[in-house]
């Protein structure tokens, strides 16, 4: 039974209008000066050459911030991957910073994937996008040049689970990194920018932007315009992102995927305690019991919490999202997970 892979939630995606709008640019000049050696017209593309190119152009996979050169280095010691995926799976609401560049800069993305294909010689290579994106203004193409665009479905959180299900012999590279790879190979450009979605119900013109790394978040908000003051502002994700307290001081990094500004509507409905509705148990992708974990962590029962599988929580916040009593389940569980080191719980009660 694959119970763990089917659980989760289908979130309302709210990707429009950012996804269909043109990619906007907010670039400063200084990053443009550095150049690397481009690939010559009929130069043989080897893995070593690509690794050197990636390192020189300091290309970073935008999904986890790991240098692409390091990732490719790992594959040098192994057998060739069976499959290379250009990962444009945006399974979180509002975020479309991979799908949008794939649609708007498809030539570069395909070129980047082709380079990896010639160097690593996998059996297959394709792009992947998220299937559960409804109500789009524009259609995601089914094919980009010779590469198929596969739609991968699944409930949130699906990205990591979906790729681990494909097997071990799979190399997944973010589309942003592929585009930067293509630019480095064609024009010798060093990566100085990244793709960021600016969205949320406070943003005047939600869009995807190419931004110089190191730009403060406030510059992006200024560019897109705020309608009202947000009650919460975060980087990367509305579900598990990093809270931004001071947008002037917070800078965009290579792995920043989104800036999301949300204003919560104030409704005069009061919240109750847990009513035991078990919605959190139904959505937990790890098959945990978040409600019992919450009770154990909030009363500092360390051993009970570990027996319930505290260390297995991946912090996807699906439980907090679904909770009708709006308890801060995920927040507290993660906090205790960091606070209580693993293995020391046996003596403590």
């Amino acid at each position, binding site marked *: 039974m694959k119970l763990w892979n089917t659980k989760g939630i289908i979130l309302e995606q709210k990707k429009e209008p950012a996804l269909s709008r043109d990619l906007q640019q907010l670039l400063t000049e200084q990053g443009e000066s550095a150049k690397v050696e481009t690939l010559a017209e009929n130069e043989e593309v080897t893995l070593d050459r690509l690794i050197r190119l990636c390192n020189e152009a300091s290309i970073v996979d935008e999904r986890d911030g790991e240098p692409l050169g390091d990732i490719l280095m790992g594959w040098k010691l192994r057998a060739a991957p069976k499959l290379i995926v250009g990962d444009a799976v945006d399974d979180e609401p509002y975020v479309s910073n991979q799908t949008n560049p794939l649609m708007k800069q498809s030539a570069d993305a395909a070129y980047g994937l082709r380079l990896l294909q010639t160097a690593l010689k996998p059996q297959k290579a394709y792009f992947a996008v998220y299937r559960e994106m409804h109500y789009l203004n524009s259609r995601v193409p089914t094919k980009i040049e010779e590469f198929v665009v596969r739609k991968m479905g699944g409930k949130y959180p699906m990205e990591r689970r979906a790729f681990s299900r494909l097997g071990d012999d799979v190399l997944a590279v973010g589309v942003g990194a592929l585009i930067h790879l293509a630019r480095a190979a064609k024009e010798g450009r060093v990566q100085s920018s990244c793709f960021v979605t600016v969205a949320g119900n406070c943003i005047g013109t939600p869009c995807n932007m190419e931004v110089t790394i190191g730009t403060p978040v406030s510059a992006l908000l200024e560019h897109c315009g705020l309608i009202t*003051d947000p009650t*919460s502002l975060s980087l990367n994700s509305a579900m598990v992102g990093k*809270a931004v307290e001071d947008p002037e001081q917070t800078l965009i990094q290579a792995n920043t995927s989104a800036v999301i500004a949300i204003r919560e509507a104030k409704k005069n409905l009061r*919240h*109750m305690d847990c009513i035991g509705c078990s919605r959190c148990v139904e959505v937990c992708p790890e098959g945990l019991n978040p*409600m019992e974990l919450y009770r154990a962590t909030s009363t500092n029962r360390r051993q009970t919490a570990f027996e319930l599988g505290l260390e297995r929580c991946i912090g996807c916040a699906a439980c907090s999202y679904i909770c009708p009593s709006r308890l*801060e389940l995920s927040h507290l569980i993660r906090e205790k997970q960091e606070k209580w080191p693993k293995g020391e719980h046996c003596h403590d009660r």
Partner: protein
Amino acid sequence: MIVKSKPFPQIRAEERSSLVMLDTAIALIPPFFMAVFYYGIRSLALGALTVLAALVTNWISSLFNGRGIEWWDASPVVTGMIIALMMPASIPFYIPMLAAVFAIFVVKFPYGGTGNNVFNPAAAGLAFVTICFGTQLSGYPTPLEPLSLVVDETVKLVQGPAAILKMGAIPTISTEQLALGNFAGPMGTTNILVIAACLVYLLVRKNVKWYVPAAYLGTVCVFASRIHHEDIGAMESIILELVAGSLMFVAVYMLTEPVTLPKRPMAKIFYAVTAGIVTMLFRYYGAVHYSAVFALLLTNAFSPLFDHLVERGNLIELMERRADHEEDE
């Protein structure tokens, strides 16, 4: 600009706990309409007074708790409505009110209020008054003869089909009348079609999982088709068992109550099946009416055990999966 840091996620589902409770209360209104149709305005007064008793008790006990009055908590309303609907329409007003007070003050409040009770409060309240005022609960007025607010000796009380079944006889009510609920019984539980419609509402609102009432009623059907009076067929027996007592009402409103239900889907099914088996055992061998209510109370106690067993099963499976994975590497 400084934005206050709040715990994640930034976005939340629309559903609220107070609305979940309110939904069940809304689904309990149609049976009241039917009760007014069959027994007159007295049933409405009965309902109002029971709900009032439940609410006031809840407010007082939440003051004891130090929580302050939680006026948005609709769960005592649900408890009060369920208790009233499970009573004969001719019952003296103080009996359901006493049941409601017992339900809230003895069964819910000592455990920590809404969300923490081990036993279904409404079921426990009903069990309490069954034990104390058993004889007054076993006679039902005839439907379609509206009652006045004050019930005297002139009102003829008859036995319901559940009691007739229990004595080993077969009730002589046509299937059509059974479906319409036009027979003597508790004022809200005889209208099978109305209850089924309310079940659809609760299913659509996702407050009830379909497999809980399905597993319960399925178990009852299996028993009814196997063990029945020799004069009737299996099908007739199933219909009679489903319709006669308060079984459908319990399946829709009380068995599916989120607080006492186990949390794992598999555990929910085990729980419902167990409740079904216990109900039928009570019907065959027990000495009380309200067999479904007593069965539910008994099964409530085992609810955490089902969760525990299913969780254990999951854990073993996970360990095996991990072991397999390590072997592969």
